[in-house]
């Protein structure tokens, strides 16, 4: 607990430059920021939760159609992207550690590589979207999914209407995930510039920590999206 008699001058003498006026001490500020990010991530879980809920219901109803539609997505691209994101989580952890231990070069390098991996992810995602677009798998007027066999049921074709629901969910879920990636890239660019100016020290590195939390969250969402969208009924 802060020294309660401390007011005005006393505070300013030992004021850390990054300590905002309304916090009693850096510890309180750090706790508040970190709790804030965790609470925010809880709201993000609910945001994606609505989508997962819709997905699970339709997948249960239209399993065969979903499996057929899922098979048309390039699993190799999805797997590569999974690997890319897992690597980026590692570099984020490195960045946090580097900030805490005052390793400036490592910090800048980790942040840069994280962004690079993020961009790679979005690039691969773009290639995948392009494929879907060329195959007329984008829901809308020109959507077509005729004569696609349901895996494991030779001679039985997927219902294009139900496949369209799958692709709608696919685009919304991966699209919103990609949007989160783009926001994450913005945050990391800001972190990189701040780190470049030497703002982070072993005493003050909360932004790296909570930026990292956000990045990990976006990764974890992908860890769920990948099997649900790419790996349905692949054993068949």
């Amino acid at each position, binding site marked *: *607990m*802060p020294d*309660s008699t*401390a*007011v005005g001058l006393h505070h300013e003498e030992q004021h850390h430059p990054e300590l*905002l*006026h*309304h*916090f*009693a001490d850096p510890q*309180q500020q750090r*706790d*508040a920021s970190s*709790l*804030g990010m965790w*609470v*925010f991530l*809880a*709201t*993000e879980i*609910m*945001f*994606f*939760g*609505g*989508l997962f*809920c*819709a997905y699970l*219901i*339709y997948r249960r*109803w*239209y399993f065969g159609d979903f499996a057929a539609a899922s098979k048309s997505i390039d699993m190799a691209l999805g797997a590569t992207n999974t690997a890319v994101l897992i690597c980026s989580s590692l570099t984020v952890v490195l960045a946090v550690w580097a900030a805490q231990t005052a390793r400036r070069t490592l910090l800048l390098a980790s942040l840069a590589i994280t962004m690079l991996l993020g961009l790679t992810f979005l690039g691969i995602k773009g290639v995948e979207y392009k494929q879907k677009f060329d195959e007329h798998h984008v*829901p*809308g*007027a020109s959507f077509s999914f005729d004569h696609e066999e349901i895996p494991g049921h030779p001679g039985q074709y997927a*219902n294009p*209407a*139900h496949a*369209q*629901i799958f692709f*709608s*969910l696919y*685009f*919304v879920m991966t699209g*919103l995930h990609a949007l989160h990636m783009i926001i994450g890239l913005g945050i990391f660019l800001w972190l990189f510039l701040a780190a470049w100016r030497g703002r982070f020290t072993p005493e003050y590195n909360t932004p790296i920590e909570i930026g990292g939390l956000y990045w990990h969250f976006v990764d974890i969402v992908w860890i769920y999206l990948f099997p649900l969208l790419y790996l349905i009924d692949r054993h068949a």
Partner: protein
Amino acid sequence: MSMEIAIPKPVERENYLNKEYGVWSWLLTTDHKRIALLYLISITFFFFIGGFFALLIRLELLTPAGDLVQADTYNKLFTQHGMVMIFFFLIPSIPAVLGNFLVPMMIGAKDLAFPRINLLSWYLYIIGGVMMLHCMLIGGVDTGWTFYAPFSTNFTNSNFIEAGLAIFVAGFSSILTGLNFVVTIHRMRAPGLTWSRLPLFIWAHYATSIIQLLGTPVIAVTIVLVAAERGLHLGIFDPKLGGDPLLFQHLFWFYSHPAVYIMILPAMGVVTEIIACFSRKRIFGYSFVAFSSIAIAVFGFLVWAHHMFVAGMSVYAALVFSFLSYAVALPSAIKVFNWTATLYKGSIHYDAPMLYAFGFLGLFTIGGLTGLFLAALGIDVHVTDTYFVVAHFHYIMVGGAVMGYLGGMHFWWPKISGRLYPEGWARLAALIVFIGFNLTFFPQFLLGYLGMPRRYYDYSHMPEFQVLNVLSTAGATVLGVGYLLPMVYFLWSMRYGKPASDNPWNAAGLEWKTASPPPTFNFDEEPIVTWEAYNYEELDAPHKQEVPVAR
């Protein structure tokens, strides 16, 4: 001589209002109290827009024939009335104005944990509000505030996407306010202010924030899906593709039912403070009132499908949701009983805030008990989607939330503005609001049981409903006067009102231990709390009128 008199005048003391002047000192402020006032001005603006729509709706229903406006116009009126009142008035009302102003002060903090995010949430609200206004000006939306699929996705010709995005953006404002409150309440309490010493206003806001945080994202993603279905022709709720319109309703009500508690819980918090102060008593059963707020927040998430008993849901699901709806009624009942018990052996004053609290108590009781009718499956089939529902939720949201909001505005007005409002006028307004409200909405219960469906602009097929509709419209005009009055005398008092002392009500709570209006960082000295909440015993002790702020 004259100098000596001038210096100690309260208005000369530096406070959050006179510290800086100029537009930018307001638009770029990070002071939670100034942001609260920004919210106050903006939500009042939207309240009167929504109120104007309501008045037009009531005027149209004065006669059975659809003669004042056209059918589409009427549909847009009730849609925009609902959207504006819910998303741009009720949800931000108490949390963003009174909560913003008071939460840091009540817990002895200098500001909310994230002052810049607080400002951002006001700007998000304004962006959403401007989008909503723009949407109304270019033609409006006719989906109903519930925008059920597939009407909203594939059928309406109005610009739902913009209205949806407006709600989406305002929703993020609501999320960020909730986030700020949760973190502030967890991390910024003054030394000695344990959870069990918190004012119940704080508990109510804590519970509200949890709902805002966990519910709002779901409506956000639902809006994204509807907008994508409408704009990009995705198919998620489209029955033609095998999509399920009921899934939309589940997602929608998963937020929109708890949203009712976002509106009513803060009002309960306000009323708790007022009843304690004007009974000069510690609140009866403090921990039961505190935990009933949390219980409402938790159970509130489990009852959404009671809006869907005739929607085509399984009978067994209906059974479960009916049961849970009775479970959520209990904590509300407990609150009412505890408020009533607080009056026992009190020393009750009848100032305007207390009159509003009495009004709240009465109207909320009626609103809550009619909820029991709607939760009863057999009756719900008959009265759902009729005026019975309209009356019920207006008793909760207008009779409850708005009464609480007005009570709170009167109670804390001396703290906010540093001036006293005219007490006589305020009591008169409270009376007018109470009478006008009952006259407007009580007849609607009768209309509902008679079977008048909601959202009908023309009832010439059933002219027997006219008498009750005329009563309701008459009540609405009275209610309108009741709502205009406080705005007039609050504005008047800002210039002509008597300067308020630091604690005009001799009330408990840290917010009364600082100046009126408070300085920018709320307290000249950081308070240390050594007393329990609602220590009216000490406050009213014969030889001790002031408890020291800090020691």
